[in-house]
């Protein structure tokens, strides 16, 4: 699935950096009904993780009240150059990944 990641390309060692992620997902709550009364089954992202060179730096659990195409913004400390890996896990075996690299001077 499409994802948009915003990580600064460069940072100074020790800087607090903001990471912004946006991913496409319908986030169907499981509380809605179709016009003929059938319940629309829940289909949401349940968990998000961010790993910085393999170390988990941020994790979030997501719930039915969260809007479609969830946008998450969080902070971490720039320690070393490398790769940030993002993973979204959800209902019906949903899994999506993305990554971004950062240069720390």
């Amino acid at each position, binding site marked *: 699935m*499409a994802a948009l*990641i915003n990580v600064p390309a460069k940072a100074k060692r020790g800087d607090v950096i903001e990471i912004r992620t*946006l991913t496409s997902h*319908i*986030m169907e709550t499981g509380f809605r009904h179709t016009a003929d009364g059938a319940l629309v089954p829940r289909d949401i992202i349940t968990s998000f993780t961010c790993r910085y060179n393999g170390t988990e730096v941020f994790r979030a659990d997501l719930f039915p009240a969260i809007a479609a195409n969830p946008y998450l913004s969080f902070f971490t400390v720039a320690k070393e150059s490398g790769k940030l890996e993002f993973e979204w896990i959800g209902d019906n075996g949903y899994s999506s990944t993305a990554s971004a690299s950062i240069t720390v001077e």
Partner: protein
Amino acid sequence: MIFWHAIAAATLLAAAPALLAGEIPPDARRSGYSFMGPDTRAMQDDDTSNPGMLFVLDGEALWAKKTGSSDKACADCHGDARSSMKGVAARYPAFDKVLARPVTLDQRINLCRANHQQAPALPYESGDLLALSAFVAHQSRGVAITAGDDPELKPFVAQGRDLFMQREGQLNLACTNCHDDNFDKRLAGAPITQGQPTGYPLYRLEWQTLGSIERRLRSCMTGVRAQAYDYGAPELVALELYLMSRARGLPMETPAVRP
């Protein structure tokens, strides 16, 4: 005599403001963007927080994907959309000589699929159609709208204008009653805009997804308790054409974000 002249002059003066209120002068035309709060503006301005860009990304992938029985991708004929599609959406709906009527960008994509790709038409408001039209229209971001300039479109622009001015529904309201006469005021707490179609298809937070101008027009019609025209109906195309010609000169914003 002087008395009657005075009455005639007074009548004219009284009638003049009502006539002026009808249409918005070109220099007073404003995108819906200017009616939004700072948070929603920030969301549209940053391409990594604008959810419409997710659809543009999907559209970019579809642009290069071979489909249909002729096994051609959009890119096989049109090449790099960044140059070939620049400014195209600012001219749509455009006159189609074969059909002898205006077609919208969505209809053009489906005509291309039918005639050149031998692929089935994508349903209105389907994710793939919205993604493709968002990707194509995104190439025109910043380009001034010129739709409706084609002289062959004149009767269709006039039809759209008539529909815009015509009262309808149980509330007996015309588009013009809100969007020409009362913009900048509020309706149930939400700002009334001028209804300038600068950013379609756009991401509406209320919809939680991207939607076409036809979806927006249909929800306005439902709002005044009128029977909405079907997707692709000639009336909706004429309305879209009139709205685009009314927004002449405003820059395209696709994909816009609206509350």
